[in-house]
């Protein structure tokens, strides 16, 4: 078979994003449940296998032992990216990164 005559090569262009939601609309009748995408954030990691959300701080981690933390209201201001399996024991590995 000549090159290029088989199945077309499928170029994968995967993008890993974090979607941040609001689950309630604040209306005059009170809080109405509804799924609403507030914003997306690209933490420049692989697919995250851990997501934690506490107040305004979002922390994600991927399978390569990398983690990133960001303020959910201003993710464009940059994230703190941590690279270690035991982050708390290696604070010197913390670096700032613009995402």
């Amino acid at each position, binding site marked *: 078979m000549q090159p290029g005559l088989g199945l077309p090569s499928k170029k994968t262009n995967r993008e*890993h994003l974090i979607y941040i*939601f609001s689950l309630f609309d604040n209306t005059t009748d009170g809080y109405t449940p509804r799924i609403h995408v507030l914003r997306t954030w690209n933490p420049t990691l692989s697919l995250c*296998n851990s997501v934690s959300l506490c107040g305004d701080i979002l922390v*994600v981690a991927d399978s390569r032992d990398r983690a990133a933390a960001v303020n959910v209201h201003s993710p464009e201001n940059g994230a703190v990216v941590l690279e270690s399996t035991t982050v708390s024991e290696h604070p010197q590995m913390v670096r700032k990164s613009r995402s």
Partner: protein
Amino acid sequence: MSRLKTLWIALCTAYVTAQGIPFPNGDWVNQMSAPELEITTREALDRDHRLRSGSQRDGYVPKGRTNWQANPSSAISEILFVPDPAGHEGRCIVTVSKGIWCLISLWDIQALGRESEATQPKPKTIDSWGPKGTIFGAIAVNSDPRSGASAAVAVTLGG
């Protein structure tokens, strides 16, 4: 011997996590001391016993119980309770299904527990979200209901 942390890790793995009994994740186990791990393991086993017992005396009696089909084509992989900003307890839950088409659904369970089991109303779906061609990773619901960001999900586009 019961002071050995390795013993409690082995017991916890065999009798708690391997049985699917809810337990804090692996990182917590590493951080706990042997006595803390023993207490947490005993509490997890006791809670599981009470949930399964159904006894009025020493068991946990469910507030409400109903069966419904949350997704006809994919299994539900996660169920998360959503804290309500208005302070209502147990008003909504989120279900996540990770089939060919991943979907997040928001359910109203407010009416559960108000009727007898025979006339228990089904939860109502409020909204669903799942763009075509996406794969979901981890999901989290905000523990602080006052935050405008209620939930976050890791998504792969073009997967």
